[in-house]
Every structure is written in C-alpha cells, then in structure tokens.
C-alpha cells in the first residue's frame, strides 16, 4: 500500500519532521483554546455576578499577550520547517511521492486506510502557500483584532483552521483529505460566525457550513465509488491503477469526477454552490483573507489537481469543470460591477478568480491552475488585508463621532490615499496584478490559463472544440470586467474627495506596523511572484525582457512529476494542442493584447469614475433597471430560497407535524391504547361479587378434573 514510499526514493530525500508541521498549529489551537476557555469563564462569572467586565484592563488585557506570541509563533515555526523541507525537496529531484504513515486508521475487511501524509511537489507548494501567507495574516490579525474580547478564541480557531488545511493538502488518501475538508468547513463556520451574538453573522456561518455539506456529499459518493472499483482509496493506489481500470470517458470515471466536481464547487464557491462566499464576509477581514481568498477556497482546485489523472480520463467532466469555471468567472464579475461594499466586491472577485482556476484545470492546464492559485493567494490576500486596514481605519474614524455610517461602504470613503499611503500603494500593486497587467503576477497566471483554453480549442482530437472557443471568449470578457471593477474599487476608495466627513477624517490614519508590514511583503510577492512560471516563448519576447528579466519556467518543471501522468493521458487521447489562439495569433501577441486592453480599461475607469461625484451611502438612490439586477446578485439567493429552501422547510414541517406527530406517534399510542383496552376488558372480571369468584373457582376445578379425568 505504501510501496512507493517505503522504498528509498530516487533522491533519497528524508523529510524533516513533516508531522510536526501539522502538529504545530494544533498545539497553537490547544494553548489558545485553553486560554480562551479560561478567559470566557472569568467573564462569565463576572456577567453572572452582575459585575461589569472590562477585559481591556490597562489598555491591553492579560489574555492577549500569550496568543499574540503563540498564534503567529507556531505559524512561523511551521513555515520555517516547511521551508527547510522545501529546500530539501528542491535538491532531491523527487519522482515518486514520499509517504510517511503514522498509524493505521481504518482496517476493516478490504479497506485499509492509514493515517499517512504524502509529500510531493504539489503538496509542498500548497504547504508553502498555507504556512507562508497564513503567517503573514496571523501577524496582520494581531493588529486588526487588538480590541476584540474574543482575541484568544480567534487565534485558536485560526490555528485550528491551518491545522485542518495542512491535513487536507498533506493527506495521502482521500479519507484523510476529507478529514481536512470537513475540518476547514467547520473552522470556516466558526470564524465566519465569530461575532455570533449578531444573528446575521451567525446565519452567514450556518449558510456556509450547510452549503458546503452538499458538496461533501459528492466527495463521499466519489470515495465510495473509488473504493468499489479499487478496494483502496489512497492516491498511490488509485492513480497508479486508474488508467488500467477505467475506460477513457466511460460512465464510471465520469460519475466519480462529477461527484468530485460537486464537492469542489461547494468548497471553492462555484456555480451552483457559491452563495455562501459573499455572505461569509460577515467574518473578520483577516479571516476572509486567509480562508476565503488564499487557502480554503482553493481546496476544490487542489482536489481536482490532485485527481488530475481521473479528470484526464474523463473529458466530459473536464469540459464541465471548465464550463462551470468560466461561467462563474463571468457571472461573478458582472455582480462585482455594481456592489458598494468593499468586501463584497472582493468576495465576488474571489469567486470569479476561482472560476479561472477551474477553467485552467478543466482544460488540463493543471500547472496553470496551481500557478493562478498561488498568485491569487498573494494578491487577493493583499487586497483583503488592505481592505481590512481601510475598514479598521474607517471604524476608528466613525467611532470617534459615533456616526452611524457603514464603515465598509465605498460610497462613504474616498480620497483615502492621503491618509493611508502605504495601503494605497500596496493595493494598487495588487489591483494591477489581478487585472492581469504585465509584469505583475496575475498577468502571467491568468494569461496562461486563457492561452491554454485557446490551445485546447484547437487541439487535434479535441471533442468539444467549439465549446472551448466559447470558453476562451468568455474568459477574455471576464478579464476585462475584472480590470474594470477593481479599478472602480480603487478609485472609489482612495481617489477623489473624502466623503467620510471632515471631523471624522481627522481620525483616519495609516495602519500600525503589524498590519502594513505583511501588506508590503505580499505586495512584493504580487509583483514578482509571477516570474516563476513564464513559458519560453514569452520569456524570449518583449514580455520577458528578451530574456534579460530573471524569469523562468520553474513551476512547470517542479510540478511535472505530479502532472505528467495526466498530461500523458491527455496527449494520447487529444493529440497535440494548438499553437495559436482560435482567432489566430501566438502567445506573445495575445499576451500583449490582453495587457494593453486591461491597462486601458484601468486608465479609462480612473478618468471617468474619478471625475464623477459619488453620493454617500445614506443619500444614494436605489439602483434601477439592469443595475438593480446586478446589485441584487441576479436574485440567485431569492431563487434558491423559493425553490430549494422553502420546499425543504415545508416538507420537514409536514413530516414533523403530521407524519411524525400524528401518524407515527399515533401508531405507537395505538399500541398503548390497545393494551389499555385489553386491560379494561380484563378488569371486567373484577366484579367484587363473591359468587362470581366462587364460580371461577369452580370452573377451575372443572378444568382440572377434566384434564385428569379425560386423560386416563
């Protein structure tokens, strides 16, 4: 079962304490959790005794000092350990995954699942992203959540989340991944509903968890099917034998992959299960940055990339994946055009970019999908953290004069660049990255995905050529919209005149060091992070500085051992991919076109929107016409509510009140009543009359006599 890992791998690479990487965040959770419990007990005692409980004794409560060091501390240690292992793996030239099995988890009958972790290039990249970006966000949270009484609880949950996410990406089999899958769903619920005393926020948490659950059903069904086919559910076993066992494009593999797709749409917020992500903005902003931008939502993409072999064997499913991805990308982008809450814009932007990742893995460009995942983690986390800094500042300002405005509404902002220059610069860098402008990170990743879609459309034996051409066009359209709404966000927030109010504006200030240093680091990654996966064509062209800029195709080569099986299957069945886009023209041409178009969209938006006067939120009119539909998210939530939620509620009401209470309870009561009736009949024997009793004696005597007499 672990044959590949137990033998000496080719590079003879020994990972250094990989289990500790997972355990460190868990330890952080335990310590912070214990602290949170004791703090809660103290405050509960005070509340019960009717005392005022001011946790902010002397400005900084005692309960805050330990989590400040433990929370980011374990993350830093985990990151360093991951880095050491990463460097080790770099030098090891690994071709088979290294599997460390710790104990046997399930051993019943045919099924044997070990608690094992698998270290290969894919999981290593994911671990770097999770621990690295996670660490930066932990540091940011120290500043952001300073004044919150739930500080230790926050870090406990955040550490627990990282633990589960690491389990997800490091697991060596689908059940282990599923543990992580469920666990991050749980932590997402806990963190979204962090301020649970507000009903809306708690409901948002519930929504996220319940919608995720629907996806989990798909995951489980897929595991069951795989078990039926292979009698094993670990990666090495399944992927090793997949080609031999499954028919290319057959019904079984298509079903399995479609179930996995269902799970991925739930976790990664694609159509039809994306509805929880915008609501998830109810949680603290660093949570949105970590979970709903950089890590948890990428779990779906990771699942598909990990199961690349299975998806390569099912071209129909891959087409569906790509289709859902590009539709979601376009759909979410349209909604983001008209949102006024800064976090909502970013939320829909996340959904849209996840759509791009799905498009990438759907057309078989697994490396491109992972690449976009990585760059997206950088710039989206940066955007969210920047928005967090802005909101933090706005809260302080509005709090001072107790103005009742929404601190997250962009119409109440404006001109913030004078007050928050560092945030302004870093967020612009992220915006340029996400808009896909050269030479920032997003350009290379998004471009590669769009290019591969076009290439797939022109492949030799591609089954759905026309379809992929449509995908390509839609992807380009969504890219333009991305540039527009991001520029709109920047203009409304940072440019123009300040609309918050003159007294409030005096209290607007830059974020503290714990908050802007992570921003800076992420900004640097957003600028240069894309230079690790640039194809040869691009590198040698103007877009690569004619070979002078330090770009390379390193990521592609790095992930090759993981994706080559899938690529081989793809090449064998689909033939060679095209070298020109459907409308003609090579990679470089389209790269230039897209960056120029994006840049012009940004510039035009800055000019047009910058000149316009934006009313503040309380004075703004209701949107009309088509804007109204976009602002109300195409009424999807209302649609689901009417056609899915309400019928279910009605059904359960009927089942509960009628079937359960009347029919089933009635049947049980009937049995009881029948017993009572029989007893009543029996009680009629008790007449209280001596004569009757004597009569029954006599009957008894008769019976005995009869038995004795008639026997002999």
């Amino acid at each position, binding site marked *: 079962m672990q044959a590949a890992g137990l033998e000496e791998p080719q590079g003879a690479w020994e990972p250094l304490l990989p289990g500790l990487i997972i355990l460190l965040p868990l330890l952080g959770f335990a310590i912070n959790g214990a602290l949170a419990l004791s703090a809660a007990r103290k405050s509960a005692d005070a509340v019960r005794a009717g005392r005022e409980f001011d946790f902010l004794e002397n400005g900084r409560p005692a309960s805050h000092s330990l989590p400040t060091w433990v929370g980011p501390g374990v993350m830093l240690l985990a990151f360093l350990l991951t880095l050491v292992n990463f460097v080790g793996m770099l030098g090891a030239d690994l071709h088979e995954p290294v599997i460390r099995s710790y104990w046997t988890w399930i051993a019943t009958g045919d099924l044997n699942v070990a608690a094992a972790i698998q270290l290969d290039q894919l999981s290593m990249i994911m671990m770097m992203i999770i621990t690295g970006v996670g660490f930066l966000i932990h540091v940011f949270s120290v500043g952001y959540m300073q004044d919150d009484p739930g500080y230790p609880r926050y870090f406990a949950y955040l550490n627990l989340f990282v633990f589960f996410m690491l389990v997800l990406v490091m697991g060596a089999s689908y059940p282990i991944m599923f543990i992580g899958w469920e666990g991050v769903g749980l932590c997402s619920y806990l963190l979204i509903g962090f301020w649970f005393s507000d009903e809306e926020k708690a409901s948002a948490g519930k929504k996220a968890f319940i919608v995720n659950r629907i996806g989990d059903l798909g995951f489980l069904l897929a595991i069951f099917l795989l078990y039926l086919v292979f009698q094993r559910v670990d990666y090495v076993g399944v992927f090793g034998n997949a080609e031999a066992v499954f028919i290319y494009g057959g019904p079984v593999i298509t079903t399995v992959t479609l179930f996995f797709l269902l799970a991925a749409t739930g976790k990664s917020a694609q159509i039809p299960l994306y509805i929880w992500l915008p609501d998830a903005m109810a949680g603290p902003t660093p949570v949105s940055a970590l979970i709903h931008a950089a890590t948890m939502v990428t779990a779906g993409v990771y699942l598909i990339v990990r199961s690349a072999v299975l998806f390569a064997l099912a071209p129909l499913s891959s087409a569906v994946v790509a289709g859902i991805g590009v539709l979601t990308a376009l759909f979410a982008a349209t909604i983001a055009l008209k949102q006024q809450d800064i976090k909502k814009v970013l939320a829909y932007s996340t959904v849209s970019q996840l759509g791009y990742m799905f498009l990438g893995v759907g057309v078989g460009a697994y490396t491109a999908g992972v690449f976009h995942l990585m760059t997206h983690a950088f710039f989206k986390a940066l955007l969210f953290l920047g928005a967090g800094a802005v909101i933090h500042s706005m809260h302080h300002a509005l709090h001072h004069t107790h103005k009742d405005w929404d601190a997250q509404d962009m119409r109440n902002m404006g001109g913030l660049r004078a007050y928050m220059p560092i945030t302004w610069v870093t967020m612009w860098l992220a915006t340029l990255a996400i808009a896909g402008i050269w030479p920032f990170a997003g350009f290379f990743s998004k471009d590669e995905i769009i290019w591969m879609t076009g290439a797939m459309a022109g492949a030799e034996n591609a089954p759905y050529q026309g379809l992929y051409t449509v995908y390509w066009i839609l992807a380009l359209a969504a890219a333009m919209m991305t540039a527009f709404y991001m520029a709109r966000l920047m203009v409304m927030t940072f440019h123009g005149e300040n609309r918050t109010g003159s007294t409030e504006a005096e209290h607007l200030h830059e974020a503290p060091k714990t908050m802007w240093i992570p921003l800076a680091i992420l900004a640097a990654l957003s600028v240069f992070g894309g230079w690790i996966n640039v194809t040869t064509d691009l590198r040698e062209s103007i877009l690569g500085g004619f070979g002078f800029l330090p770009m390379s195709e390193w990521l592609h080569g790095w992930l090759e051992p993981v994706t080559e099986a899938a690529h081989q299957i793809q090449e064998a069945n689909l033939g060679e991919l095209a070298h020109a886009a459907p409308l003609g023209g090579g990679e470089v041409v389209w790269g230039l076109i897209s960056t120029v178009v994006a840049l012009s969209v940004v510039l035009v938006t800055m000019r047009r929107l910058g000149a316009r006067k934006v009313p503040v939120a309380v004075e703004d009119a209701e949107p009309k016409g088509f804007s109204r539909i976009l602002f109300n998210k195409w009424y999807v939530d209302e649609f689901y509510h009417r056609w899915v939620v309400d019928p279910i509620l009605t059904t359960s009401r009927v089942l509960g009140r009628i079937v359960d209470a009347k029919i089933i309870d009635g049947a049980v009561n009937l049995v009881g009543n029948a017993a009572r009736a029989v007893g009543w009949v029996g*009680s*009629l024997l*008790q*007449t*209280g*009359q*001596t*004569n009757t009793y004597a009569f029954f004696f*006599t009957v008894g005597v008769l019976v005995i006599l009869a038995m004795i007499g008639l026997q002999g």
Partner: protein
Amino acid sequence: MLAESLVLAGVIFVLGTLGVIVRRNVIIMFLCIELQLNAVNLTFVAFSRFVGIEGQLFVFFVMTVAAAEAAVGLAIIISIFRHYETVNVNHFNLLKW
C-alpha cells in the same frame, strides 16, 4: 357400599357448589360450604374402610377445622353486618374495579 357413598358424596358436593354460586345470602352460602365439607368427609370415611384408619382421622381434623372456620367466619359476617346492615353479598363490592 363404596361406590354408592362416593356418588352420594359427589351429589352433595355439587349441590353445595351450586348453592355457593347462586345464593346471595352470605349465611346460606356459608351453609353450602359446610355441605361441601360434609361431602368430602363422607368420601374419606367411605374410603377408610379399605385404606385404613387414617381416613377417619382426617375427618376428625376436618371437622375441627370446619368448626373453627365457622366460628371465625360468622364473626366476620357479624362485623360486616354492623357496617352494611345487610347480608346480601351483592352489596359487598369494594373489590370491584
């Protein structure tokens, strides 16, 4: 003589049982019980001629016990009568469900 005695005893016994079942006056019911006991005594005596003196001994004891029982039973009837003012068994129905 044995068979006839047994038949006689059986008849008296059955008549006594019938009396217990159909009469409502508790004293007459008691009398019928005495009839039953008497019939049983007759059976014992009839057999003692063939089996041994033990039959008659047993009758001796039965009579003794019957006497004691009659005494106590009548005492009970008297104390019930004090409460109910009647000896009609239909009225003694506290045991009715």
